[in-house]
């Protein structure tokens, strides 16, 4: 596939044109942080960021989402019968998503798009989304994507990879979807592919070298589930945890949700909301019994799910892309890199 050159002078006009055909999501600055927002008419992406505070998952998987509508008005013939909430949204583009967040959708897809069941809300939203990635020229100290199956220039799950090079973007077209988007934006200046690749490779090597933390995952699959589950280190890992749920909230690969009915007058909706394994209510039985009633249970569930159960279930790596958000945001400094390494080496001779 080809590579397109986008001069900074073309950028604003291209994004404006893109909004005619797509809803455009992109990082914008809010106070001290960058967050993904759906851009209004005049807004431009702010791509001067290391990574957004929250992941881009909300573009495909909103924090709260209407599933069904119904009426409780018994004079209506369809009272108490659920109807799918109409979906009127068209194609959307996420501009400036980091490779770690794009790769996360591929992991989450394993949960929502299965041979037996398809979650129509997630699957349809993912299908109509074009992901325009932004390669990380300057990764953070908390990034560990290169040992989590990706990298700062990883193309997995992306439709276009933008590489910032001096005062231009090199836009590497990765899929037909991506080509269509660049076309819609009017970005057409084809670069010399070989020359562009040399530039991209040089920047990539520099970025790869800047990742200075890593995790070891090679033994996770071989570990015995119950041995790992009963490992003594969980008490230490969970000791400081306050079960605030921040880690799951901002994680690009956390997908757990709750379903709730809400009624106003006679009109009701059934909706789903992000939920978190950090909360006791997540697993509380009606009887009062709770199978994960201590924070050790809950902290262990989060790490075992990402780093053991997922590994065993899909045999395709860990459920983490190394974005490092949970490391940065945890109020008590629980670090998934340390936990992963402890899990990986558990039971082996320290020498």
């Amino acid at each position, binding site marked *: 596939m080809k590579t397109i050159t986008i001069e900074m002078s073309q950028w604003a006009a291209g994004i404006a044109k893109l909004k005619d055909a797509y809803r455009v999501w992109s990082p914008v600055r809010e106070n001290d942080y960058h967050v993904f927002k759906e851009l209004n008419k005049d807004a431009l992406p702010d791509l001067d960021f290391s990574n957004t505070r929250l992941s881009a998952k909300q573009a495909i998987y909103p924090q709260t989402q209407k599933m069904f509508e*119904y009426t409780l008005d018994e004079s209506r013939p369809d009272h108490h019968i659920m109807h799918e909430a109409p979906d009127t949204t068209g194609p959307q583009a996420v501009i400036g998503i980091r490779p770690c967040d794009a790769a996360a959708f591929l992991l989450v897809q394993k949960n929502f798009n299965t041979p037996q069941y398809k979650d129509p809300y997630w699957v349809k939203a993912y299908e109509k989304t074009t992901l325009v990635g932004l390669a990380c020229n300057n990764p953070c100290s908390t990034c560990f994507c290169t040992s989590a199956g990706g990298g700062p220039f990883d193309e997995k799950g992306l439709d276009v990879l933008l590489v910032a090079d001096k005062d231009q973007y090199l836009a590497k077209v990765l899929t037909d979807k991506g080509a269509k988007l660049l076309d819609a934006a009017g970005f057409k200046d084809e670069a010399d592919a070989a020359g562009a690749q040399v530039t991209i490779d040089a920047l990539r090597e520099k970025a790869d070298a800047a990742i200075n933390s890593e995790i070891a995952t090679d033994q996770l699959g071989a570990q015995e589930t119950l041995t790992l589950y009963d490992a003594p280190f969980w008490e230490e890992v969970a000791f400081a945890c306050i079960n605030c749920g921040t880690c799951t909230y901002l994680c690009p690969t956390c997908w757990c949700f709750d379903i709730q009915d809400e009624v106003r007058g006679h009109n009701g909706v059934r909706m789903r909301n992000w939920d978190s394994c950090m909360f006791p209510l997540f697993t509380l039985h009606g009887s009062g019994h709770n199978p994960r009633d201590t924070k050790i249970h809950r902290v262990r569930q989060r790490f075992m799910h990402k780093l053991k159960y997922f590994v065993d279930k899909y045999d395709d790596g860990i459920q983490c892309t190394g974005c490092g958000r949970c490391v940065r945001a945890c109020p008590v400094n629980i670090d998934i890199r340390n936990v992963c390494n402890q899990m990986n080496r558990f039971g082996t001779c320290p020498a």
Partner: protein
Amino acid sequence: MENPYLPYPVRIDEVITETEDKNLKTFKFVFLNESDETKFAYRAGQFAELSVTGKGEIPIGIASSPTEKGFVKFTVNKVGLVSSELHNMQAGDIMGIRGPLGNSYPWDVLEGKNVVIIGGGFAFTTLRSSIIHMLHPDNRAKFGDIHVFYGARTPGMLLYRDELAAWEQRDDINVHITVDSTDDPNWKYNVGLIPPLAEEKAPPGDADTYAIVCGPPIMIKFTQPVLDNLGYDHDHIIMSLENRMKCGIGMCGRCNIGKDFVCKDGPVFTLAEINTRPKEY
């Protein structure tokens, strides 16, 4: 794309109060659209999400048998928001059911085998489904001896009392009913707990005999050593687990024991399988 969260609309056809404490009611549902009944083809041991419009959904084992046509039945304990609302509903009311969900009892494995059913309290619903299924004239020859052990606190707390009495009269099924205690002078069945009764009357374990055990944790805890003594291998002891659920299709993330979801990979597991997973149920 089919929406696996969309319930089939149903009408409550009948509500039966099962127990003397009035906390257990059986709801008989009829599908509003006849074609939905065909789509809801199920096996004994599966469950469904009962959707009370405006309140939410609860996962409940299917108490009717696939051999019973024209309706589906669920017996519901009154516990929380949705089940309490359901207990206030009446024949004629409209709601939804979503399913069938989960894996069911392993009927392919059980074919040609002796089946020992051990149930306690209100965990007898999918066991009723299984018994009706096995006793059906089309199916009875597919199984060896059938034993049923069923206990409740008092005679008035037993579910499906008329059916129990009828099964007790048959010679193609061995039914052992017991209650923890009773002051009823006319009580003609056993008095005492399930484990000693099973120890005395259950057939010994062998390659051709499977036990299906459903009941409160305390019953399961004291029944397992009995089955061990009787020689049941752990892959011949079948259990149905419960956990808090929302989606019922393995997506919402809360009901897992290790890598398996109780809703999608279960709720039925062998004891051998359960032993290799975290006890988070």
